[in-house]
Each structure stands twice: as C-alpha cells, then as structure tokens.
C-alpha cells in the first residue's frame, strides 16, 4: 500500500474557475432569473388586476345628485286632502314623476336656464329611483305635502356616467336612452353647482335595484347576507373542524378506517365547490325543507366546503407541536386531554387561526354553490334575518344574497353602469378579505406572545 492520491486531477489555482464551477454558477444565475421573472409576473398581474378593478370600480362610490326645490302639490299627492297615509299610498311612484318634472321645469325657468327639451325628456334625466325616494319621504312624513322641499335626488345612470367619463357626447348620439341636449343641460347645471357628484354611502347601504336603475343599486343586502353566512361558517366550521382534527390527530387509533377518513378529507378539500351546492340543495332544501336562499342554508353549504380546509390546516399545526411538550405534560401526570388543551392547542393556535381565516376567505368568495341553493335572488327589500316570523328560526326565513353572487348578477345585466357597480362590489369584497387577514394577523400575534 503506497500513499497514492485518490484522483490524478492536475493542480489548479484557486483564482481560476474551472469549467464545472462556471457551469454551476451559470445554472444558479439562470435559476435566480427564472425566480425573479416568476415573481415579477405575479406582481405585474396583481398590478393589472388592481388598476383595472380600482379604475372601473372606485367611481361607484361616487354618485351624481341634483338638488332643486320640489313643490309637493297637495292636489296630486293627497287627492282626498285628509293626509290619511293609507289613501296617500294609493298614489304610486308614477304619480310622483310629474311632480318632480314640473318642479324641475319651473325651477329652470325661474333660474333662466334655457334648454330645448320637453317635459318628458327633462324628467328622463332624473333617476327612476328619485320618485320612489320622494314618495317614501312623503309617506313617512305627510306634513310635507303642500310645502316645497329642498331635496337632493339621484340623476339617471347615463347622466351620472357622463360625469364619470363613461358617457360622452359622441356616444350619446348613438344612445336612445340619453340625448345630447340632456348632457348639455347637465353640464350647465353642474357648472352652476346644482348637479354635483359626491361620495355615496348608499352604494354600501342600499339594497339591489332593478336593471334600469343602476344608479340606485347598492350592496347592503349582499354585505349582510355574506356577514351572516360567515358567522354561521365560523360558528360551525371552527369547533367541528378543530374537534375533528384533535380527535384524528391525538386520540384516534391508527388503522384502516382512520386512514380512509384521512384520504377522504384530503379529497374533499379538492372537490369542486359546486358539488357542495348540489349536496346542500338535496339535503338542506329538498330533504330538510329549509327556506331556499336563506343565509343559514348558505352558511351550512359553505361550512361543508370549509371544513376540510380547516381540518387539514389544524392537523398540520397540531403535528408541528414538538412531541416533547406532550411528553412533558404526560410525565407530570396530566391527562391526555389536559396535555392537549393546556399545551398543544395553544401552541397550535396560530396555525389553526390561519387555516380558519383562509377557509373563511375562500367561503366568502365562493359563488358556485350559492347559485344552486337560490342565493342569486334579486333582493329588493332588506331581509329581516333575526325575526322569527312564520315559524322559522333566525337566519332561516328571508332570502338573502351574497357579495360574490351580487358581483355575478350585476355583470349579467345589460346596462354598462353595472360594470362599474360590479367592480365596486369586488373592491368591497377585497376590503372584507383584507380585514379578515388583518384579524388573522392580529390574533396570531396575540397568541404567539404567549411564548
């Protein structure tokens, strides 16, 4: 055995890179470029998405109003002259249209503003919602009849679109719903400050409106519907999911049956959400006879959909707790349940919360299963979820809609103003998601501070 070197590579300087090293370094540089390109693509996509949504949707938080004195003529609005609300209600919304139009015409004449339109064309500048607004005001307060009120009322969607750049003089020439004369008058009134575009809370608080009055369509019902569904999901999915994961992870014997359950839970997480909608339709509506499109049914369906996500996340975070903590507790004479609830669960809490919020966010944005249980309903009136009328439990009576479904149904309407509304609804949805993530981060911080 002589002392031979293992290989006979020639001796090289450390300063000169050999071919292998160069190749390796090139490969690394290439990989870093790929990675950066991937990240940049993602960022670019995000920027495009946000600019398009914000560009289309932010204007839905602003709305154009016109303010002028409206003379509430008694002979039209209260023909009997006795201020009886029931008889006054017989004057329908259409009865208020001439009231508004005549007042506007009189106002323009009084101000000396010239225009070339007839009364009908002039009235068409106002929103179809405006007469209903005034009618509700009058019915709520009959003393207003006979007086002249200074009201701020909605203008039509096209006029509103003119001030937001959606409608132009050129497009108005081709549009049967708006005339150039109307736009010219609107511009004059805007210069005088009679027509103004301002921030619009009604977009968030008002219920949906029909296809011909996009200017009055709001998200109120959808927000409440989504909120109650999230409550149902949180109240059901979190305890059920965490209990199931703790049992499966800590107590269940490891055998064929639990293996089968585990595989099925993983598969359920990948099942298309519309399948859960069909399940909900069959079980909750057809079999259990719950009211369709009630928030409870929606919440139950979304709970089923969210459970696998929560269970998988919870099990993963339970598994990540070091076994030494369990042993320490058991070694001190803690029971299995004590060791889990005193030590393992608090340590797993950040992971569980993250999983739950991800599941909730997924549920908040889900549309498909809700379509199948009738939540795509057009809800014109605020539902009374918490009442127990007609022998139903709270959340089981009135139908509701949800934010993503509202987006879906608005994008289906013909008036281009609804594109703006749908984008605005997406912004609200994103704000909700951001808020939920913020809550998740705050909760995680709080639990992590317990070392």
């Amino acid at each position, binding site marked *: 055995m002589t002392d031979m070197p293992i290989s006979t590579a020639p001796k090289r300087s450390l300063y000169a890179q050999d071919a292998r090293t160069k190749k390796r370094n090139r490969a690394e540089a290439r990989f870093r470029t790929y990675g950066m390109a991937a990240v940049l693509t993602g960022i670019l996509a995000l920027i495009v998405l946000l600019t398009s949504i914000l560009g289309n949707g932010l204007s839905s938080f602003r709305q154009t109003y016109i303010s002028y004195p409206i003379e509430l003529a008694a002979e039209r609005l209260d023909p009997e002259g006795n201020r009886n609300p029931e008889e006054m209600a017989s004057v329908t919304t259409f009865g208020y249209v001439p009231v508004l139009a005549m007042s506007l015409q009189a106002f323009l004449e009084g101000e000396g503003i010239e225009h070339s339109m007839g009364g009908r064309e002039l009235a068409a500048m106002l929103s179809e919602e405006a007469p209903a607004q005034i009618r509700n005001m009058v019915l709520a307060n009959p003393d207003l009849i006979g007086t002249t009120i200074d009201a701020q009322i909605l203008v039509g969607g096209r006029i509103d679109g003119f001030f937001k750049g959606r409608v132009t003089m050129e497009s108005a020439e081709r549009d049967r719903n708006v005339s150039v004369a109307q736009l010219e008058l609107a511009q004059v009134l805007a210069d005088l400050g009679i027509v103004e575009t301002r921030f619009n809370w009604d977009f968030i608080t008002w219920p949906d409106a029909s296809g011909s009055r996009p200017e009055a369509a709001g998200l109120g019902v959808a927000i409440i519907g989504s909120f109650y569904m999230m409550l149902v999901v949180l109240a059901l999915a979190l305890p059920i999911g965490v209990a199931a994961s703790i049992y499966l992870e800590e107590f269940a014997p490891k055998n064929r049956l639990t293996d089968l359950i585990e595989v099925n839970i993983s598969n359920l997480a990948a099942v298309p959400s519309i399948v859960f909608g069909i399940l909900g339709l069959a079980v909750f509506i057809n079999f259990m006879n719950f009211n369709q499109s009630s928030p409870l049914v929606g919440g139950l369906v979304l709970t089923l959909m969210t459970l696998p996500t929560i269970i998988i996340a919870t099990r993963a975070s339970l598994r990540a707790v070091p076994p030494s*903590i369990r042993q*320490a507790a058991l*070694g001190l*004479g803690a029971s299995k349940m004590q060791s889990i609830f*005193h030590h393992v669960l608090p340590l797993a809490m950040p992971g569980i919360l993250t999983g739950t919020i991800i599941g909730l966010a997924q549920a908040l944005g889900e549309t498909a299963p809700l379509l199948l249980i009738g939540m795509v309903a057009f809800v014109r009136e605020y539902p009374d979820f918490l009442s127990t009328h007609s022998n139903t439990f709270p959340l089981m009576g009135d139908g509701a809609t949800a934010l993503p479904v509202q987006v879906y149904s608005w994008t289906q309407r013909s008036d281009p103003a609804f594109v703006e509304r749908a984008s605005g609804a997406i912004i609200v949805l994103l704000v909700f998601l951001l808020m939920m993530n913020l809550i998740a981060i705050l909760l995680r911080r709080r639990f992590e501070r317990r*070392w």
Partner: protein
Amino acid sequence: MEDGNVNDMSGIDQGVAVTGTKMKARGVDVFYGDNHAIKEVDVDIADKTVTAFIGPSGCGKSTFLRVLNRMNDTIDICRVEGDVTLEGEDIYDPKVDPVQLRAKVGMVFQKPNPFPKSIFDNVAYGPRIHGLSRNKSDLEEIVEKSLRRAALWDEVKDRLNAPGTGLSGGQQQRLCIARAVATSPEVLLMDEPCSALDPIATAQVEELIDELRSRFSVVIVTHSMQQAARVSQKTAFFHLGNLVEFDDTDTIFTNPSDPRTESYITGRIG
C-alpha cells in the same frame, strides 16, 4: 436563609442505609411490534437511592425506564409483560390510571422541555392539575420550594414571569427537575438528563441529583459511566435488552461478575 433548604439537603453522606424497596420489576418483557426490546428483566428500585441504568445505545435502558411510569402506553405498538409494582401495588393493573401513577413517578427527559410559559407556570403546572395547593400563596410556596430544591431559585427568583424557554440549557433542565419535583413524586425518573448539557451544567445537575436522593428514589439513565459512578449507589447494566448485572455501583465498577460488564466499563464494547 436563602440557601437554607439546599444546604440542609446537601449534608447527607454517601453511605446512607438503603431503607427498603420502592419499586419492584419481575420478569418484564417489552415488545415494539415484533421486536423484543426488553427480555425478562428483574430490578428492585430502592427507596432514597440513586439507581443508574447504563449500557450501550439501543440496549433498552430508556425503554425500561419508561416502563416504570407507563410512558410506553403512549406508543401504540408497544406491549409490556411482567409485573411492576410500586410499594406492592401492580402499576399495570387495569384499575390503575396511568395519570395517577405518573403523579407519583415523575420524569425528567433527555432534552430540556420546559413549557412555552413563564417559569412560575412551568413549576406550578403539576400542583395545579393535581390540586396540591389550596390558594395562591400555597402555590407560590410550592413553586419556591421546588425551585430551591432544584437549585434554581437564586437564579430566577427575580424573573418568575419570564418565559421558561428563555433560560440556558442547564437552567432549563433544572427547571424541568423543579417542575417534576413540584408534584411531590415518590420516584423520579431521569432519562439521560445531562446529555444535552455542558460540563458545568452537568456538574450542577449531578449535585442536584445527589441532594434529591434524601427525599426521592431517583432512577437515572446515562451514557456516561463516570456519571453513573459519581451519582448512583446502585447500577444496572443492560445489554441487547437483557439485564446483565445489577449490583452496588462500587461492585459493578470495581469487581463486576459478568465479563460483558467488564468489557463495557473498560470500553471494549458499546
């Protein structure tokens, strides 16, 4: 007075008389699935004595230690046969709740594993779940006594609310000992308590073990023969799942009767 308790306990001389048998194991077999890990082991754990289990890696000494407080129950495939008694009561009797047993037979693990809570809560956890204190001052007294007994009080008395995980390795291990001591166990099992510690921390823990002997039976598993020689009065040598020899520590190290023991302690096997 700060160090009064600790000093009192350290005055016990090495040659204290063995007062009787605390735990008795007869014909213990342990199986992990088909693997026969412990074969027909008989050991008596004497009261107020340090018993050391030595042997090469994988010889079953830790497994046997875990037989003594039924920690093996937490492993699904593990099966224990034979008789193990604590003061004459069979600890594998179906009537015995392992949770109650573990309150009497405490355990300290190889790696320091304090709970991610405050130092106070770490020590107070055992007394709390076993209802050993009537009120808060009672609990504080138990915590102080336990920390003194683990020779940690002086180092942490000003920061009892600091996290236990923020202590150094040696302090953490002493905290774990304090935590085990706080439930007033009768037997204290230690599974290589010094293997993750530096020599200074090891010396502190060894000193502590010697002091603990005045109140508890201590059973210690160790890889270090020097440590066994230093801290124990009785030594059991395990090899390949068999108990080869069990005798006074002096006898094992100076005059072993089995050639395998001699080979091991002179460094030829293991």
